[in-house]
C-alpha cells in the first residue's frame, strides 16, 4: 500500500522545478510530512514500554484459556511513537491554531490550568469504588459542581452522570417518562422542531417515543401555531433548543412552556447553546423541566477528536425524584453516594435506573469547577455577553455581502444561508473548503436544516476582535471572489491543506475500516 501520499519521484529527476510546484523525492513537503500507519512501521517484537521482567516458570491460573495465536499488534519504540503521533497531530486544525467557528459546537479556549488540576493524583489516581471515606474530596467536588449548575440555571436538582449531551437528553426524557409512568400516564409523542440537532429526534426514539416535527417560522423560531396544533394529551414532552440552532432566542418560550405544562407534558430544553445565556438567564425562570448542559461546550472541557464530553441534566421539582443513580448527598459534614435503588428509596427518591457504570465524567467535573471558580459567580455573565457580542459583530460585518438568514440580533451564533452564492455555481461546501486554504476552520454547514445551504458561525467569547476581523476579512474576500466568478478557487479548494477533498462516496460504498495484513488479501469490504 502506497501511503506516501503525494506523488514521489524516482531518484533521477531532471526536469526544471519551480518553487511551489516542486515535487519532492520523499513525498514530504518541508515541515508537512506524510506518515504511514503503525501497522506499516511497527513490529510485533518491538515495544516502547519497559516493564519489569515477569518471573520465569510461573504456573498460570488461566484455566487453559491462554491466547495462543498472534494478535497482530505492532509495537513502536518510544522515539518512533513520538514521531508518529506528533506528525499526525500536525495534520489537524485545532482551537489552539485558530478560530474554530463551528456553530452549535462552542469551540472555546480550553485552559491548561484545567488540565493540570484534572491530573492531580487526588483526582486522576482515584478509583470510583474506593470507600467513600477515602474520596470525600471527590464527592465534595461533584456536589459543588452540582450546586453551581443548579444555581446558575435556577433549577432544584441535577443528574450528574450523563456522559455527554446526547446521554443527557436520554436522561431527561427517561426522567420525564418515569414521572409520567408514575402517574399512570403513558404518552407516546415528543414534539421536536425541525431545526433541532440530530440527537433530539434520535434520543426521543431511543426513549420509545414517536417524533413529531414542528416547523419554523419566517423568523427562525418554533412555529407557535403549529406547535399548539400538535400539542395534546399524548405529548410527553417538547424538546426545544434555546437559544435555538439558528442562534436565536425563542421569544415564545414561556408560552410554549406554559402550554406544554397545561397539556400535562414536560418541557425538555436542549442546553447545548447555554453559552449564550450562562450567568445571565436562568432556564428555570423560563419553565424548563429538564435541560442538559454540555460541560465540554459551555464549561470548556477539551474533547479533542470528538470526545469525551459530559452532559449533566438539571431537573425541575417534578422530575427530580426520578433522577438516575448514582447521586451524591451530604449528611452533616460527610458526602455519601447513593448507588442503589434501595438506598435511593430510603431517602424518598425513585430513580429511573442507571445510565452508566460509576459516577459520571469526574475528569470533566474537575475541569469544569476549575473553570467556574476562575470566572466566578460574578464573571460568567461576561462569558455569555462576549459570546453574543462576537456573534453579532460578525453578523453586522458580513450581512451586506452574505445572506443573513434572519433579521435582528442573534445570540452566540449567527446563521447565513447560501442565498448570496446564487448563480455563482459555488455551494456552501465549496465556500467552506476555500476557508481552509485561507487558514480557517469552516463554520458549521448545512445545519440547521431550516435554511438552504446553512452556514452557522459561532465564534465564542474567547476570540479577540483581531481574530474576528481577520475572519471577516477572509470571508468577505471570498464572498467577493465568489460573486466575481472566481469559481476555480472554490471548486479546487482546499489545495493547501494536508489533503484535498476526500472521496466520501467511495469510502461509504466499499468501506475499508481497518488495516489488514497484505497477505490476507484485499482490505476488508463491507459485506451486505
Amino acid at each position: 500500500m502506497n501511503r506516501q501520499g503525494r506523488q514521489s519521484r524516482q531518484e533521477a529527476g531532471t526536469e526544471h522545478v519551480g518553487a511551489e510546484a516542486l515535487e519532492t523525492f520523499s513525498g514530504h513537503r518541508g515541515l508537512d510530512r506524510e506518515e504511514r500507519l503503525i501497522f506499516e512501521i511497527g513490529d510485533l517484537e518491538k515495544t516502547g514500554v519497559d516493564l519489569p521482567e515477569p518471573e520465569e516458570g510461573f504456573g498460570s491460573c488461566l484455566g487453559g484459556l491462554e491466547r495462543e495465536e498472534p494478535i497482530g499488534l505492532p509495537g513502536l519504540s518510544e522515539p518512533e511513537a513520538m514521531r508518529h503521533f506528533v506528525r499526525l497531530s500536525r495534520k489537524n486544525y485545532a482551537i489552539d491554531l485558530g478560530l474554530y467557528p463551528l456553530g452549535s459546537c462552542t469551540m472555546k479556549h480550553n485552559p491548561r490550568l484545567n488540565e493540570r488540576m484534572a491530573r492531580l493524583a487526588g483526582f486522576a489516581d482515584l478509583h470510583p469504588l474506593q470507600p467513600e471515606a477515602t474520596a470525600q474530596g471527590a464527592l465534595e467536588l461533584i456536589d459543588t459542581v452540582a450546586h453551581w449548575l443548579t444555581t446558575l440555571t435556577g433549577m432544584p436538582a441535577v443528574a450528574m452522570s450523563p456522559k455527554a449531551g446526547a446521554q443527557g437528553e436520554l436522561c431527561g426524557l427517561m426522567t420525564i417518562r418515569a414521572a409520567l409512568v408514575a402517574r399512570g400516564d403513558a404518552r407516546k409523542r415528543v414534539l421536536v422542531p425541525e431545526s433541532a440537532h440530530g440527537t433530539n429526534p434520535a434520543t426521543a426514539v431511543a426513549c420509545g417515543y414517536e417524533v413529531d416535527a414542528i416547523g419554523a417560522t419566517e423568523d427562525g423560531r418554533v412555529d407557535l401555531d403549529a406547535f399548539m396544533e400538535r400539542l395534546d394529551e399524548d405529548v410527553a414532552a417538547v424538546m426545544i433548543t434555546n437559544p435555538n440552532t439558528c442562534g436565536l432566542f425563542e421569544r415564545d418560550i414561556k408560552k410554549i412552556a406554559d402550554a406544554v405544562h397545561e397539556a400535562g407534558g414536560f418541557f425538555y430544553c436542549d442546553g447545548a447553546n447555554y453559552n449564550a445565556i450562562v450567568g445571565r438567564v436562568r432556564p428555570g425562570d423560563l419553565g424548563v423541566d429538564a435541560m442538559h448542559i454540555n460541560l465540554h461546550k459551555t464549561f470548556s472541557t477539551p474533547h479533542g477528536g470528538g470526545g469525551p464530553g459530559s452532559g449533566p441534566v438539571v431537573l425541575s421539582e417534578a422530575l427530580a425524584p426520578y433522577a438516575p443513580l448514582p447521586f451524591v448527598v451530604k449528611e452533616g459534614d460527610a458526602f455519601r453516594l447513593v448507588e442503589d435503588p434501595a438506598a435511593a428509596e430510603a431517602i424518598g427518591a425513585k430513580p429511573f435506573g442507571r445510565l452508566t457504570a460509576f459516577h459520571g465524567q469526574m475528569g470533566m467535573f474537575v475541569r469544569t469547577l476549575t473553570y467556574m471558580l476562575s470566572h466566578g459567580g460574578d464573571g460568567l455573565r461576561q462569558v455569555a455577553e462576549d459570546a453574543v457580542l462576537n456573534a453579532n459583530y460578525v453578523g453586522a460585518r458580513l450581512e451586506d455581502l452574505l445572506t443573513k438568514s434572519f433579521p435582528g440580533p442573534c445570540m452566540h451564533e449567527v446563521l447565513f444561508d447560501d442565498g448570496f452564492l446564487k448563480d455563482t455555481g459555488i455551494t456552501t461546501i465549496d465556500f467552506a473548503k476555500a476557508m481552509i486554504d485561507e487558514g480557517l476552520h469552516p463554520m458549521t454547514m448545512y445545519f440547521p436544516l431550516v435554511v438552504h445551504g446553512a452556514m452557522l458561525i459561532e465564534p465564542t467569547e474567547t476570540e479577540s476582535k483581531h481574530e474576528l476581523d481577520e475572519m471577516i476579512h477572509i470571508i468577505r474576500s471570498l464572498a467577493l471572489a465568489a460573486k466575481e466568478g472566481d469559481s476555480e478557487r472554490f471548486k479546487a479548494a482546499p489545495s493547501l491543506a494536508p489533503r484535498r477533498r476526500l472521496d466520501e462516496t467511495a469510502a461509504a460504498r466499499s468501506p475499508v475500516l481497518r488495516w489488514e495484513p497484505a497477505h490476507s488479501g484485499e482490505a476488508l469490504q463491507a459485506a451486505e
Partner: protein
Amino acid sequence: MRYLPLTDDDRRAMLQAIGVADVDGLYTDVPASADWDVRGDLPDHKSEIEVERELLRLAGRNQSGGEGAFFLGAGAYRHHVPATVDHLIQRSEFLTSYTPYQPEISQGTLHYLFEFQTQVAMLTGMEVANASLYDGSTAASEAVQMALRITKRSGIVLAGNLHPHYAAVIKTGLSIVDHSLSETGPDPRESGLQDLSDLITDETACVVVQTPDFFGRLTDWRSLAETAHAKGALLIVVVTEVVSLGAVMSPGAMGADIVVCEGQSIGNGLNFGGPYLGLFATRKKFLRQIPGRLCGRTVDADGREGFVLTLSTREQHIRRDKATSNICTNSGLCALAFTIHLALLGEAGLRKLATLNHQSAVKTATALTALDGVEVLTPAYFNEFTIRLDRPAEPVIAALAARKVIAGLPVARLLPDATELSRDVVIAATELTSDTDRDALVGALKEVLK
C-alpha cells in the same frame, strides 16, 4: 478575565458596528423577568493561584492510589501509563480539535482512529470496530439494543456474573422497549455456563456474558456461542479489563458476535470513574447496525490516500430519528490515549504486561490463601479474583482503608441484595502492585481479622 480577549474598547467599537447601545440590546428577545444577573451564593472569581489552592484542597481530601497499597478493580483498573501517552494527548492539535468532520484538516485524528479501530478489532478478535463509545457499560447497552435490531427478537439472557453496573445500564436501556429478560444469579464459584445455555430460546436475541467476569473468573464461552448461534441468538461478550486480552483467548475466538470492552486500562487513568472508553467490535456483516462513528479509508482529489468518517447514514446527525444510536460526542481523546499506549506496548509489550498482571494476582491470591479467615473462591482468573472472609466484608474493607490499604471491592457494595455474598471481596492486582503492597495487605488483614 484571562480567557476573555475583548477589551472594553473592543466592546464599545463592536457594539457601535452592530448599532446597539449596549449588550442588553442583543438580549431583547429574552423575557425581562428571566434576564438578570445570576449569582446566587456563588463565590466571586478567583485568581489562578487561589483556584489552584482550592482544587489542591479538594484533591487532598482523597486518598489517591499511590498513597498506599491498592487492590481495587471491579471494572476500573490501576495501571501504569507511560509518560509519553499523556504528553502526546495534550498536543494542542489533538486536545483542542473537534470531531473530524472536515477531513482535509483532520487527517491526524482520522489516521489514529483508523489505527484505533484496527487495534480494537485485533484485540477483541473481531472483524470491525467503531471509533469508540462512552464507556464499557453504555457500549454493553448499545450492543443489546443492536442485537434486538438485528435479530428482531425480544429475549435477553443476562449472566449473573456480569458487572452489576453493566447489568443495571442494560436494564435501563431495556426498560423502554418490549423485551423479556432472563438472568442467572451472581456466583463467584460458578460460571453459570449451563444455566445460561438453558435459558436461551428461539426468542432470544442475545446472551450477555463477561470475561473475566465480575468476580474475576475466566470461562470458556465457546459452547455457549454454539448454543446461541444454533438458536439464532447473538453472543455478546463484555470485557472490563482489556489487558486480559494480552493473555486470554479473545472473545472473537470464543465465537462472540459483538464484543464490548471498557478500554480504560490502556492509556487512561482511574479518574474516579470517567472519562472512560467504550470499545465496540463486531462482525462485518453487522456493519450498518453499529452505533457511533466509523472511520474509513479513501482517496482525495489528487488520488492520495486519506481517511474520512463514513457510513454516517447510521448516525443521528444524518439519520436523526432513524439513527442506530443517539450518540454524538464520544471518547475521542481517551481513544487516542489507548491507541498511543497500545502502539507503544505492541504485541510483545501487551503480552508481557498481561503476564505481569496475572503473576501479580496469583501471588496475591497465594499470599491471601495462607490467611485464616480468608478463602479464595476463584479457580481460574486473570488479574482479579474473589475471596470470602469469615465475616461481613464492608467493615473489614473500611478498617483496611483507614490503614491506607484499599483492599478491593466488598461485593455487597454493588450487590447489596445478594446477602450470601456479603462476606466476599473482589481483589485485583496489576503490574503496579508490589510485594510491599502485598505485605501491607496481608499484614493489615491479619490485624483486622484477628
